């Protein structure tokens, strides 16, 4: 047993996620990630059971742990009540804490996710804000969505939205005092530190890769991690 394993084992999700895997492969059979990626939740459960730190370190540096979609379909079906999806969550946490997430292409995506989601949360009180659902980021929204975006002020009240308004309602502006409380929660509970950790390790990696990290969603490093896809490496063989 090693230090990395001990850390994993201190995460309640890891404790819940693994009760002894019999390698039956049921999870792999129903896993949507295993359909498209070179990925097997069965292998994840098996590897963490070795309790071997060098194996765990390799996982933390790998693309493998970022393939899962956290749908938790595996939890329903495992005959031993394991949940590879929960094991993955514990591994990802450790990969971020150790900074090893920047060693894989899929792990480096954390920078983009942090700027798209957690930055939005502490600025607006929403995970996803209407203003950010633009077609350049999400082209599959289709031409209808462009029309909605273009006509937001005149159209949204028709469907009962309170776009940027006060009081309750869809798309309302969340009061600053509530955003302040949310920010305090992030401060006190380690959320801000987590976000800083992602930025710091990503900045080092960006420098190593000769890319500008900048701020927001248009820097060279953001663009790289948002779009880069080594399909041949990741896809199911």
């Amino acid at each position, binding site marked *: 047993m090693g230090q990395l394993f001990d850390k994993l084992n201190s995460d*309640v*999700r890891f404790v819940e996620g693994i009760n002894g895997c019999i390698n039956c492969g049921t999870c792999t059979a*129903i896993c949507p*990630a295993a359909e*498209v990626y070179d990925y097997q939740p069965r292998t994840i459960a098996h590897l963490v059971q070795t309790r071997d730190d060098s194996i765990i370190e390799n996982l933390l540096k790998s693309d493998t742990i970022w393939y*899962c*979609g*956290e749908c*938790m*379909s595996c939890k*329903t079906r495992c005959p031993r009540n394991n949940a590879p999806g929960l094991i993955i969550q514990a591994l*990802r946490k450790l990969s*971020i804490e150790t900074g090893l997430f920047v060693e894989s292409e*899929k792990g480096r*995506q954390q920078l983009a*996710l942090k700027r798209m*989601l*957690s930055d939005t*949360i502490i600025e607006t009180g929403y*995970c*996803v*804000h*209407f203003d950010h*659902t633009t077609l350049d980021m999400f082209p*599959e929204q*289709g*031409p*209808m*969505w*462009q*029309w*909605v975006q273009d*006509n937001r002020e*005149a159209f*949204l*009240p*028709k*469907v*009962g*939205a309170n776009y940027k308004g*006060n009081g309750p*309602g*869809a*798309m*309302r502006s969340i*009061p600053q*005092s509530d955003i302040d409380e*949310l920010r*305090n*929660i*992030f*401060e*006190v*509970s*380690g959320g801000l530190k*987590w976000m800083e950790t*992602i930025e710091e390790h990503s900045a080092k990696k960006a420098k190593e890769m000769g890319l500008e990290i900048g701020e927001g969603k248009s820097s060279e490093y953001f663009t790289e*991690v*948002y779009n880069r*896809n080594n399909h041949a490496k990741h896809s199911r063989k």
Partner: protein
Amino acid sequence: MKLEGKRKIWNEYQKEIADDKYFYVRSCIRQAVFPGSENTYLRIMRDVLKKDVHESAHHTTCTGIGYHTEVVPFETIQTVVARNFALMREAGYENYTPSCVTSFGIYTEVLDTWHHFPEERKRTAEYLKKATQRDFQEPGNMAHTSDIIYKFRHQIAEKSKYKLINKATGLPLKVVDHIGCHYAKMFPAKGIGGAEHPHVLAGLIEAFGGEVIDYPERRHCCGFGFRQYFIKANRGYSIAASKKKFESMEPYQPDLILTNCPGCNFFMDRWQYALAEMEGKTYDTKGNGIPVLAYEELAGLMLGFDPWEMGLQMHQVGIETLMDKIGIPYNLNEKYKGAKGEDLGVPESPRNINFYK
């Protein structure tokens, strides 16, 4: 199997759902993408069923999508959840009803964690106090908003103007359901019918007279996968999972896809459009695509609400084919008008999927 035995098994998959006085919590995705859907839910609850539904202007995201993309730690999301619970008790309510299935999964996971690991609850209470001066208590009852519509489905059906019946043939319309993974896959006992016998949407389809189609990939994920959609490089994962579902339902030629999760409602709709543009294929026979509705949108439509005030024009796959089959009248001239009746022009047409304007 004898009916009695079946009933016994079925009892294991029932859950208690409060009767009135709900604290309503919005979904980030649903309100951003289908705001009219949430509005329809509130109209049904307040105007049709005369229930007390309270919405606080102060609630925030549960941060669930951030949590499931590993940009928000577990400690933080637990504290945000506790804050939303605190707002409910402060407003004098105890029945918590989130609109989002990801959130519903988050709340069940957090409550289960606090139950099994009391030290996590203790730490959360300390963080909440320090950050906000608030105290919290767990909900007396928690149900997803699709559970609530399910509970009142017969009352809603009784008051409805329409049924899921093909006007021309008199036959029931064929409906496939797609239940969000986080509704019951993590904690089957928290969902009606559990993960294996999903009934929360099937019960609604039956109440409106439709036929439930049990297609092979009914339980497969829509492919959201959180990071697998948000990052453009990963989006192949997402569209491939939805495509697998469309191919599986295609032989049954469903008239409607019914969902309970805002993300699934979005992906079932938008990936049909994207697949049509990429591959020139739709999964019906007439190039229209298969309409997609959430439980509350379907209930509103059956009750006779105006489709454009419900925001059904915010679906990229047109709902007109379904309305035509049922015989629901609609005015295309109103579809793209503004709130004050102003002319806002019309969206561009997609290339490979029929579009009504």
